[in-house]
């Protein structure tokens, strides 16, 4: 009896030491993962006027100021325009891609038609070509339509939405898990395919719709390759990524580093909040996609 309780106590102690170790590890991980964001935020408050906007050898600014944020909003640059462009692109791409992906997923998951296997295999092969291979060709196609430089915003939306049907995998995987019996019952009751799609499948697919829209919404914030190529040299058609990466890369922008940080904070905060708010759906989509491949 005595022996047993002693055993129990030692086990508990062992567990407590193990847990303490785990907590230490988790805290360390958290510090590493959060450090860049904390740094970004802190440095965005360093003043361009009283200190220096470039690289310095300390993290916490000596005086906190909102200089950099003021700079972005007072119209010295097109920052508000860039931000607006990005929001517009993100919203339209999100809507367009979601519609395309839903259409393709329903057709491929629910219907069996001639050429279905061919289409899936063909698109799979197409996906193995690197995306940037076709950069110049896309540029000339858009130029023929007048959608470069000044028209870059609708051009970028068009490019992003047009080929998005190929990204149907996660959504189709989700549709595959919805029982076929539901569709069959509705068809026996005389519902057409279109009615089933709009009134049965789409309401059931809410999580995957949110996932698709969220992922599509986040991508344009990062897009600087396609955007810089298509908007080339036309400042007011830039998105935030294209415009602000200059502040880090190019030497002409010495001292713009803290301004980049401020802009980065303004970009990151709303996107991150939205993401955190819809995190549940993201996790569901990502996990489902990983398992079904």
């Amino acid at each position: 009896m005595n022996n047993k309780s002693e055993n129990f106590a030692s086990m508990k102690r062992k567990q407590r030491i193990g847990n303490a170790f785990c907590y230490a590890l988790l805290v360390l991980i958290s510090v590493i993962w959060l450090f860049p964001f904390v740094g970004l935020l802190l440095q965005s408050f360093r003043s361009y006027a009283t200190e220096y906007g470039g690289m310095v050898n300390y993290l916490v600014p000596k005086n906190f100021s909102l200089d950099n944020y003021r700079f972005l909003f007072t119209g010295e640059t097109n920052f508000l325009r860039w931000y607006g462009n990005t929001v517009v692109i993100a919203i339209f791409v999100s809507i367009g891609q979601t519609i395309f992906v839903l259409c393709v997923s329903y057709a491929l998951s629910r219907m069996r038609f001639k050429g279905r296997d061919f289409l899936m295999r063909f698109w799979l092969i197409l996906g193995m070509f690197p995306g940037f291979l076709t950069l110049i060709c896309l540029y000339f196609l858009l130029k023929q339509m007048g959608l470069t430089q000044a028209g870059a915003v609708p051009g970028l939306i068009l490019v992003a939405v047009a080929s998005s049907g190929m990204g149907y995998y996660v959504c189709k995987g989700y549709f595959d898990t919805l029982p076929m019996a539901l569709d069959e019952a509705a068809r026996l009751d005389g519902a057409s395919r279109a009615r089933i799609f709009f009134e049965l499948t789409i309401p059931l697919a809410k999580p995957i719709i949110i996932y698709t829209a969220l992922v599509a919404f986040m991508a344009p914030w990062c897009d600087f390759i396609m955007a810089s190529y298509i908007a080339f040299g036309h400042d007011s058609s830039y998105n935030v990524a294209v415009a602000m990466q200059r502040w880090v890369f190019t030497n002409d922008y010495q001292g713009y580093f803290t301004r980049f940080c401020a802009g980065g904070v303004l970009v990151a905060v709303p996107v991150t909040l939205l993401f955190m708010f819809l995190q549940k759906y993201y996790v569901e989509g990502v996990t489902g996609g990983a398992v079904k491949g």
Partner: protein
Amino acid sequence: MEKKTNPVVSGVKFLGNDLREIGTTFKEGDWKTRLSYLIMGFGPLSRGQLVKGLSYLLMEVLFFVYMVCFGWKYFSKFTTLGTVETTKQHRVTVYGDNSFLILLFGLLTIIAVLALIFLWRLNVAENRKEELLLKSGKTLPSNKKVLGSLLDANFDKTLLALPVTGVFVFTVLPILFMICVAFTNYDANHQSPTNLFTWVGLDNFANLLNFGSSGFALTFFKVLGWTLVWALFATFTSYFLGMAVAILINKKGIRFKKLWRTILVMTIAVPQFVSLLYISKMFAADGLVNSYLMKWGWIRTAIPFWTDANLARVMIILINIWIGIPYMMLIATGLLMNIPEDMYESARIDGASPFAMFRYITLPYMLFVTGPFLLTQFTGNLNNFNVIYLLTQGKPQSIALSDNAGQTDLLVTWLYKMTVNDTNYKMAAVIGIMVFIVTAVISLVVYGMLPSVKSEEDFQ
């Protein structure tokens, strides 16, 4: 299991049958059917099938309008890609042929011709179907019904029309175009519209495999080697460490699980161009890390995080772990919960150590379930543009590599540089084809070896 048949033989057989059917349709058909061979959709139109007949007719008219006004002009020069140079006469530029447009619209014309042949065949089959239906005493479906089927039995066509067109115009056509460019001399010296470019056969591929000082081979294989090493490390470090972190957070007795997860997930939420650019500056020579290490007196001179090739490579892989762990953690968290708890319970009673439990229970299950995911991660990493470009832009440069390739360049970032900086489109196209071949070969080989593929149906 599929029967093994010779694809050539079955293809010829198929074609033979098809031709015979076209013949019988003509022989047994009435005059309406026979006229449809010339005027598409005439048969359905004269039998009252307005919707079908008109669409066939419209397609044929559109095709000829396209050919006459547009297509033929370009297609006729397709074999040379243009011969008339752009010249300057009295300070006025007189534009000659535009090789770019000739190639692009020449391809479009070829596709249009193939599409018309396909439609023509459908048109013949439609006539046959209608005749047989009428002969057997049935009536043809009303036009309203034909249109209505687009929302029911033929709903797939309605749904897929726009997405397939979009993919065709913005992916298929550009890819075909770039494949053709790989067989031309389209580069900085042959830029349309000022200069012509033309077909050069396999010259560019010969250049790619030329190990001489003017050839691409040395650089190509070095970049390819790093691309593969990178993809391997990037995939597996994130995979195992992400799983480890998921297990750590899932561990019994650990509190604030949601908090830890949320902190990690921040990396996914914040746009990479913000976080990665910031990190790349953090490790710059005048960045935070170096300046603090110097201030504390740990180092004298800045650590060359981005200027030393090997260090830069290690850094990229390490920072990619920072990106990769959260994704894997999310996925693993969901999957780990699927493993029945009593398996661990009985293992514990048998006296298994935590490591043994991981090795013999967790890992086999995870590898089985996430096999296809690992494969897509690997091919995704082969083409992982953002991480490399935002951190190093492929730098440091080196004289050991030709054509502006940097020491940390992947094939895709090199391809991008060739397109944008050097306008060396022909070699960019060749590299693009090589990336495709590498991706396709790896996918095919690995996919066949995955254990979960063989029992794919179990999951559906």
